[in-house]
């Protein structure tokens, strides 16, 4: 009950607190990395009511309290495609197409993993339902530290990968046991009462039906009324997702595997952003080459992170591997911040230190995002949520 109340409160909050007489705070640091190419040393960031009012080398501090900080101040990082923060109860297996489901109703914004993300400098996290359905409903975007759920960015989650076939009547496992064992001890997936399809062709047909049916919530992604999160893994799946987006003028994000770089031109033409799943690869070669290709093509992209299964620092590790493969420090930092924000349509809200954006700030003891740098303090929506 307590969790429910929290959830509702969080989801109702919608926007940063807008106080009429909000105090103005100026943070002055040795170095301010705006994320838009400029570094002010020293520099200042003026914050009021959870938003950035101004950024510069020297600002008017009249009527504001000034906070002196030692270190490097930057925007908070943005993690994409988290499937773990929702937990196992977030997986609904009753229907193959579940357009009405909303992740925010099952999300616990106060879980410890959210605090851990904040401590590591991740201030925005994009959740996707960990689903085995074709359409798993709406995802959400939340602020760490405060747990605020954004009113926008609740993308419709559509699968193009083979994850959606795991419930079909085709359990590969159990072959060694022979038929009798599973006959008595559970017909794992042998019954398919929920109409789950078992093939790409079958799923494609169901998706087309739903997109063209005005009564289906899925139809709202056609034309971009509701943004979409298209989950793919290999290149064939990504190509199908891109073709689908082109066909129905779908806007949103393509979650893609490490070889998406081969389709960089096609992604660019589709207008989709990319969420790169690169961390599970033992060999990062293809993923880093893809990051390079996406950068060259001008496609906004960020990295996926599973906060409960991976160290948060693996986000920084991904950026470091991309730098080793040839990205500049600036380019790899964008993948962690403004690029990731743009990939989910949040470029006017988070991802950089710029007037009008949310005051999500991270103070580092070294260069932001470097593997050897430590996070000293973190602010989310102007509130300090973590300090070392």
């Amino acid at each position, binding site marked *: 009950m307590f969790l429910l109340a929290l959830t509702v409160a969080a989801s109702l909050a919608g926007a940063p607190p807008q106080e009429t007489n909000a105090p103005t705070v100026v943070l002055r640091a040795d170095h301010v990395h705006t994320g838009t190419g400029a570094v002010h040393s020293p520099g200042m960031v003026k914050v009021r009511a959870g938003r950035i009012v101004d950024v510069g080398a020297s600002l008017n501090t009249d009527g504001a309290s000034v906070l002196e900080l030692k270190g490097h101040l930057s925007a908070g990082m943005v993690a994409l495609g988290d499937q773990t923060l929702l937990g196992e109860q977030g997986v609904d297996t009753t229907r193959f197409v579940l357009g009405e489901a909303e992740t925010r109703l099952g999300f616990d914004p106060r879980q410890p993993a959210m605090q851990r993300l904040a401590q590591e400098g991740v201030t925005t996290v994009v959740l996707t339902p960990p689903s085995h359905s074709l359409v798993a409903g709406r995802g959400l975007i939340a602020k760490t530290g405060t747990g605020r759920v954004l009113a926008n960015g609740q993308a419709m989650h559509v699968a193009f990968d*083979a994850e959606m*076939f795991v419930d*079909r*009547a*085709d*359990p*590969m*496992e*159990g*072959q060694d046991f*022979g*038929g009798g064992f*599973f*006959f008595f001890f559970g*017909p*794992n997936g*042998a*019954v*398919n009462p929920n*109409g*789950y*399809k*078992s*093939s*790409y*062709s*079958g*799923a*494609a*047909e169901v998706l087309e039906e739903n997109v063209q049916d005005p009564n289906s919530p899925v139809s709202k992604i056609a034309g971009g009324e509701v943004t979409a999160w298209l989950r793919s893994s*290999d*290149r*064939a799946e990504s*190509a*199908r997702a891109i*073709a689908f987006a082109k066909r129905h003028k779908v806007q949103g994000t393509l979650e893609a595997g490490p*070889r998406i770089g*081969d*389709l960089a031109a*096609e992604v660019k033409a589709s207008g989709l952003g990319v969420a790169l799943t690169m961390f599970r690869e033992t060999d990062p070669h293809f993923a880093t080459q893809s990051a390079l290709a996406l950068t060259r093509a001008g496609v906004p992209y960020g990295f996926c992170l599973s906060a409960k299964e991976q160290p948060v620092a693996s986000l920084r590790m991904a950026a470091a591997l991309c730098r080793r493969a040839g990205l500049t420090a600036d380019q790899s930092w964008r993948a962690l911040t403004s690029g990731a924000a743009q990939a989910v349509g949040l470029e006017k809200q988070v991802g950089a230190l710029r007037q009008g954006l949310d005051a999500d700030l991270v103070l580092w003891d070294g260069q932001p995002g470097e593997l050897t740098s430590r996070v000293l303090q973190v602010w989310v929506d102007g509130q300090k949520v973590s300090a070392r």
Partner: protein
Amino acid sequence: MTRTHTFAFALALSIGLATARPASAQEDQANNDGKVYASVLHTSAGETLKDVMVTFADGKITAIAPGSALPDGYAEGLVLTAGLIDLSARVTRSENAVEQTNEVESRLSVANSLDLFDRTWDRLARSGVTTVLATPPDRNVVGGLSAVLKTQGSKDMAQRQLNARNFLRGAMGDAPSSGNRPAWGSPNSIYNRRPTTRMGVEWEWRRAFFDAAAAPEYPELEFPGADVFRAVLAGNITLYVQAFTVIDIRTAVFLKEEMKREGFGDIQMWIDGGSEAWKDAQLLKRSNTGVVLSPFPSAGYSPERSFQAWRVAKDLDEMGIPFTLSAHGRTEPGRTLADQAGRAMRGGLSFEKALAAVTSAPAAVLGLEDRLGTVEVGKDADFVLWSGQPFELTSRIIGVWVDGRQVQ
């Protein structure tokens, strides 16, 4: 390393060294324009020309100049043919291409399940196959609609697909019923798929056709995809049925004849497999049914314990039964489509007939005879360049072009 492996490796190495760059090609890869010189050109259109320069632009053949002098630096003894076409390339091997919710899935298109990034496409192209008919795996009684595509080209499925005749794919025999088993793996419960017998498979076929034919009068018989069966009955979609043994071939042909007898329509049918077609060739002749022959077995039996004699291609040809050859997508040395043509020749088929069975004949089945299957001005620039007489064991493929682009 076994001796076979050593040999295969040595062979691959020698081919690799020899084919670094065919000596007879000049082309502009960016514009898929170029020229190919050949000492001999088998056009597949009834002509054999000597010392030929074939010019192509924008992926189409623009000129064939016979009697050209051998240009400087060009090798002699090279033979050019049209690109090979396999109507049963079996490029859909993923378990995720099998729709298990329904035994009769006539609406689904296999195009949505194909992986254009699969290395199979490159292997097929290097083995001389430039166009394939892709079919759903035969784990359903009726698996859905097929797709025709080149083995190289755009990774965008909509662009890659050719505007060919439509085929509804299904199977007789034990593939869709194999022992009350899931599509892959072992049976694990009584809930596994049906049918489980040949009789059950045939019953699914007949029910689909009868319901589809009767539905306009009895709407309660209508089912999703019935319109596809009606299009088959109207002759607008070709029925493409896998059947290897003579009992399965008979079942398929009897179904076609029954539909005609009932007045439902005249089905255009092609049999995929047809290993035992020789046991009842009269039936195929009588019903005007074509055969896409299964690969010739090296030893033992063809699929489903059928027996395919090496002279079956020659027999079909002598009976006047339309047929093509297939390698079922195999690309290893000795098993390619070119090797199947060689085996058909060893069974008594002439070279011209064997060449037609892998070029012009399948092009006609696809309804693409205006575009593929022969080397003529205006056709697609799909070629295979051979080091000697095609289909001979001593000849190898040294260059393949698809739409005017050389396969690397």
